[in-house]
């Protein structure tokens, strides 16, 4: 019936058109899903995409957009570097947790001293913690040939156990009346990642995310490291021939993506989340994978995709509370976005044409 044919050169039009078509298809099929759940699909889509930005309570939702997009973008930028080099770090969630724990641990250790240098030190601690957690699968891969997808994913669960242990034990608030969870860093000025401009949701993590976007863009398009990284992903053998050391590339990419995820965790725990608690992580590390691909692994694309994904998060919460949609339905909706994007991706490198009639 139809034939799939490789394009001689990737289509620039579809490269940017695919995400748009994917969003539209997600709305159509997601809407159908909502309809089956007895929710008015048009209203639900409107609540997800329109209400947070322009609705009655947008003064509350708009800052949330940056608060949620910040970590998503920061993590996704790190992941995208690895993905472009063909290195699949799936464990950003774990690196995010460990970064947060390292930063919080540092702050809690010196509490209640007020040190101006504490916050920058926490950023560094978060980055180092995340990087080290990311380097575990990198080291195992380069040394023993293990699969970084599995190892990094499994380390997420290790990190979650560690988080729970910290929240219930070592880092528990001694003045917390026995409740699980650490002291609230929002009440510790030296360690607090406060809003920079009141009412915008802008905090240091958002600034870091924007810097990472610019950094990644410049490195990928203008620096030899970015060139080697892209080459490693497109043609590993050619990269090796050009002089790229594959082992070093794995270590660097896993280290960078771990460091950025760790920093995201640090900004979160010292700001919006405030304390080490059992349910500190909410899946940013996994959602960032979708953001990275939705943004075509392109820094600017990731910036936009992060904002879009944050929107579906907030809109999802609205539909949950106002329309009674189950959380799972929202997660399916987000999953659809990735699914359709990957499906549409085919059109960048291939075209579909009616098959020629076979002569008999």
């Amino acid at each position, binding site marked *: 019936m139809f034939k799939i*044919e490789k394009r*001689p*050169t*990737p289509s620039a039009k579809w490269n940017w058109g695919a995400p748009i078509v994917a969003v539209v298809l997600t709305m159509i099929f997601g809407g159908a899903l909502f309809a089956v759940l007895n929710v008015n699909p048009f209203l639900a889509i409107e609540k997800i995409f329109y209400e947070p930005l322009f609705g009655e309570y947008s003064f509350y939702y708009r800052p949330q957009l940056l608060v949620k997009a910040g970590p998503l973008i920061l993590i996704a930028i790190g992941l995208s570097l690895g993905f472009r080099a063909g290195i699949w770090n799936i464990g950003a969630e774990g690196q995010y947790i460990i970064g947060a724990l390292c930063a919080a641990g540092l702050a809690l250790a010196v509490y209640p001293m007020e040190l101006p240098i504490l916050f920058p030190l926490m950023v560094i601690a978060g980055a180092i913690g995340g990087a080290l957690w990311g380097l575990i699968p990198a080291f195992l891969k380069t040394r023993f040939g293990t699969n970084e997808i599995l190892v990094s994913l499994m380390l997420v669960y290790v990190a979650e156990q560690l988080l729970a242990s910290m929240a219930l034990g070592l880092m528990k608030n001694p003045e917390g009346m026995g409740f699980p969870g650490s002291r609230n860093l929002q009440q510790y000025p030296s360690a607090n990642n406060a809003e920079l401009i009141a009412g915008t949701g802008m905090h240091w993590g958002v600034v870091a995310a924007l810097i990472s976007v610019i950094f990644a863009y410049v490195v990928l398009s*203008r*620096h*030899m*490291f970015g*060139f080697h990284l*892209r*080459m490693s992903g*497109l*043609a590993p*053998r*050619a*990269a*090796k*021939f*050009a*002089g790229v*050391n594959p082992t070093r590339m794995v270590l660097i990419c896993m280290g960078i993506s771990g460091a950025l995820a760790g920093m995201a965790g640090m900004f979160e725990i010292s700001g919006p989340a405030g304390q080490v608690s059992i349910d500190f992580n909410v899946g940013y590390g996994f959602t960032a994978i979708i953001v990275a691909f939705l943004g075509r692994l392109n820094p600017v694309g990731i910036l936009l995709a992060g904002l879009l994904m944050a929107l579906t998060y907030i809109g999802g919460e609205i539909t949950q509370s106002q329309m009674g949609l189950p959380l799972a339905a929202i997660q399916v909706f987000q999953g659809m976005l990735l699914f359709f994007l990957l499906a549409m991706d085919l059109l960048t490198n291939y075209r579909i044409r009616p098959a020629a009639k*076979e*002569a*008999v």
Partner: protein
Amino acid sequence: MGTPLLTLSGLTKAYPGVVANDDVSFDIQPGEVHALLGENGAGKSTLVKMIYGLVSPDSGRMALNGAPYTPASPNAARAAGVAMVFQHFSLFDALTVAENVALGMDNPPSTGELASKIRSVSDAYGLPLDPHRTVGDLSAGERQRVEIIRCLLQDPKLLIMDEPTSVLTPQEVEILFRTLRKLSAEGTAILYISHKLEEIRALCDNATILRLGKKVATCIPAQKTAAELAEMMVGSSLTPPKRVSQVSEEVALHVSGLNLAPAQAFGTSLRDITLTLHKGEVLGIGGVAGNGQDELLAALSGERLCAPSQIMLDGRPVGNLGPAQRRKMGLLAAPEERLGHAAVPDMSLTENALMTGVTRQGLAKGGWINWAATKGFAERVIHQFDVRTPGPHVAARALSGGNLQKFVIGREVLQAPHVLVVNQPTWGVDASAAAAIRQALLDLAAKGAAIICISQDLDELMEISDRFAALNEGRLTHARPAAGLTIEEIGLMMGGAHGMEAAHV
């Protein structure tokens, strides 16, 4: 003559943008050895794919023994008595010969029965083969025998052979020809695809010559000279490369006692490789595919490392240095596989120029890429090596094999290497591009660079080499002056006929 075995009339097949076969007609008689001659891209493969049922023609008819023949699949073709030996083997390395043969059968007999069948066919046709050996351990020539025996077990009326000798030593070619002549004497017709003219003159009764998808001539090859055949094939006369050999006494590259384990299973180990290369010299390295060519290139390019002093470049040890550092010192390379090794298919030509040109061309400062200069370098390669492409922004994968090869070789040649190592520089390249590439290599040598040309095309090696050596199971023979070497001597250097001790039929 009676009824032709196979009649082709007016076969036409078009692909988007190219007519692969345009109104091709000819007959093959029972027992005839018929050559299909043409350059790469002349439409030979498409034509045999139609006969073998892999592709159906847009128009035109085929008849087998006078009856209409429209194979819908290779299975149908095999059932009708048409068998084919492909240029690239479809064998599983980890299985034995008998198991591989069984995989291609609809109702395979028991292994023991099959093994004795394989033995009897291999004895009858002088193709010695142990059915219980693992294919991964066989030489290319032996693997081809597996494919041939697999076909012969079907008792075919027409046997199609696609470039069968590209993987054989001259001695093995002789054995193959004896087998084919025997088959032909028994009435099996053979359609023999090649661009090797001397072979066709020696073996084939008739030849059909294709150029750009059209049949341009038929002839009796024995009555034509190789030059006449080449002219019919290319459509114009070719000027052989001019060479002014100026080999100096100065050593450019010295490799001594190089041993290297294979990087993957069924790869070839390099064993005690020793060679000396002088400035201005072209060293041709022959050998059947899979005897260590890729490994030797990787060891010289720096993709595989060894002890520092095992490779000396201009008197300095480089064995432990990676590709970028060796490039900086003047040792450049162009691997065989264009897409994915020598070039990144999904990157533009500009980016591909940056890939190996960055250091010697000064295309980056402190790691920051100068894209304008890189584009300029890519344009110089495109211009000077006549690469047919709309411009340097085009992805490498969009170029034809010959054009990309010119780009890859040009990219290295323009960087003024002290030593250039190339593997299969004209593989899959049309004759005029091949001539241009060979000329560029000779010009580079004339300017004092030393060149190692690894190739399976013996004619090419004889044309451009000052000295000749051969790789055989990872060992390199002593290099001998190329002038005056006979084809027998070359064959013996390449290891003679693998596994033929028992089989002087």
